[in-house]
């Protein structure tokens, strides 16, 4: 699936990040391609979250570069990264409990008119936002009990699905999912994994942080392993290589 011929959507080159005495990223490089799920693996403190936060504009790299479609990515803030086409779903989901799914989808980028008014003074086009949200949820086969109820009333899996679906709509280049199934039960995890497969089928580049080896083997086209801030391996996950992956993560491969 990783056609070497197609250029990567995302390229991270020689990323370095220090937090005081802690050297969180040591010369990390990776690439992400369209239509591919890349698993980012590593033990706690390996640097996965730091790397993802650098890509999505929360932290700035000390050295190294982040390229989107071959050009320097303007990821100096989360909002800028979002504008550049990178959507990140963190574990807290960043959903507004008091708003409906459609209101959550479009929060901060509402469809509104007339265009000549300052953004805050425009009138909401509720119908368009509800219609588009319903269409996206339908396309991604996300089933919600009610579209007009606040997301506070929805289950963990449904909320995760809403957050992931929102990310897909607006991600023109890359979707990053930080442990998307960590808080979910078996059945709800299944739904979210199906959703990730769907994302890939639609040609998105997806990076998933996860600790679940079953999911990596089942889902990921490629896995990058970090340990103590260093990239220690990259391979195509399979049942056969599962043990090798675990060894890389814990640092026992010799």
């Amino acid at each position: 699936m990783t056609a070497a011929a197609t250029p990567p959507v995302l390229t991270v080159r020689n990323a370095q990040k220090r937090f005081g005495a802690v050297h969180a990223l040591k010369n990390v490089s990776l690439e992400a391609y369209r239509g591919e799920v890349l698993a980012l693996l590593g033990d706690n403190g390996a640097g996965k979250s730091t790397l993802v936060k650098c890509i999505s504009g929360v932290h700035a790299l000390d050295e190294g570069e982040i390229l989107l479609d071959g050009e320097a990515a303007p990821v100096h803030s989360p909002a800028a990264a979002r504008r550049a086409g990178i959507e990140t779903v963190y574990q807290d989901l960043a959903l507004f409990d008091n708003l409906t799914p459609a209101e959550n989808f479009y929060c901060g980028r509402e469809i509104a008119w007339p265009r000549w008014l300052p953004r805050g003074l425009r009138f909401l086009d509720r119908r368009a936002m509800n219609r588009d949200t319903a269409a996206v949820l339908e396309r991604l086969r996300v089933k919600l009990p009610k579209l007009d109820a606040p997301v506070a009333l929805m289950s963990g899996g449904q909320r995760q699905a809403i957050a992931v679906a929102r990310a897909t709509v607006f991600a023109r280049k890359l979707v990053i999912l930080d442990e998307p199934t960590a808080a979910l039960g078996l059945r709800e995890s299944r739904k979210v994994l199906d959703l990730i497969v769907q994302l890939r089928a639609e040609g998105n580049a997806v990076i998933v942080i996860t600790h679940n080896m079953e999911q990596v083997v089942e889902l990921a086209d490629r896995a990058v392993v970090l340990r103590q801030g260093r990239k220690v391996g990259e391979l195509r996950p399979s049942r056969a290589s599962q043990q090798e992956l675990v060894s890389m993560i814990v640092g026992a491969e010799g």
Partner: protein
Amino acid sequence: MANQSDVATAAPEGDRARGGGSAVSLALRLLGVGPLLILIALAVAISLLTPNFLKPANLSNILAQSAVIAVVAIGQHLVILTRGIDLSVGANLALATVMGGLMFRVTDSPTLVILAMLAAGTVVGAVNGLFYVFGRLPHPFIITLATLSICKGLALELSIGHTTMRGMPDAITFIGGASSFGFPNSFFVVFGVATIVLVLTKTMVWGRWIYAVGGDPESARELGIPVKGVLLSTYMISGLCAGIGAVVLSGRTGASSPLYGNLLELDTIAAVIIGGASFLGGRGNLGHALIGALMIGVIRNALNLMNVNVFFQMIAIGVIIVAAVEADVLRNYLEKRARTIQAAKTQ
């Protein structure tokens, strides 16, 4: 990935959850309309106890007496929607009436007097907002408590020892004291302000941002919503509403006073909360503020009609606030239940 035993045990659990689900959603719906039901029940009970209650003159009186609380509560509800609080509204209103009174000494123009009051209110609101947002204060409690004290002191200082300054332009006493079509004119003021705020909050992007900031300020910032501007605007509008309240109150009394608006912060916060908005931010609407204001007006009026003393009125309103906040807590608990039920339903 779901294995056989998992499916088997989940089925009855799902059934049980479904039964509980309708009960929980019914309870949530009841909590939603609760304040309105309580207001109606209150009105029925009081009208049985005191026949005078339902007379048109008395109802009109209730509207007039609730108008100040209602209009200031409309501003307060915006602030509370963003998880904030505006303790300065009462003192702000007092200062605004004094500014109006001072303006009336130099000019007869009702426009200028009204403008003085509205400007005073808005400036105080802006000070609250600017210090809260750009002074990086941890909570608006502190700055609005400070401006409460400052406004009160300024109002007393500027009125140079007069507890009341008599006289207001006719246009203002007309707004605050007269009636049209059988309704007090102040009712129309409340109606007008409410309509504007309703349009702002429910149909415009700005209103959506208020709910987003109240729901999750951190996420709102990450999504590129101008959180600081939104917060500042709510405090300015709350101040403006205090200024409008000042026009109505000084119109009703035909005077201005540094002693006006005493404990108005309490009444307006109480109105918003007992009306059903959440103290935790992001939940609530204009209807809640108005129902709450009317409820306080009705309770005061009824206790007056029944000759219950004013101290008991304060106790009654305090008790109702506690009940309303508990209802808010209960709602949060029920929503958590609803989530669990949803999870169980997911097949």
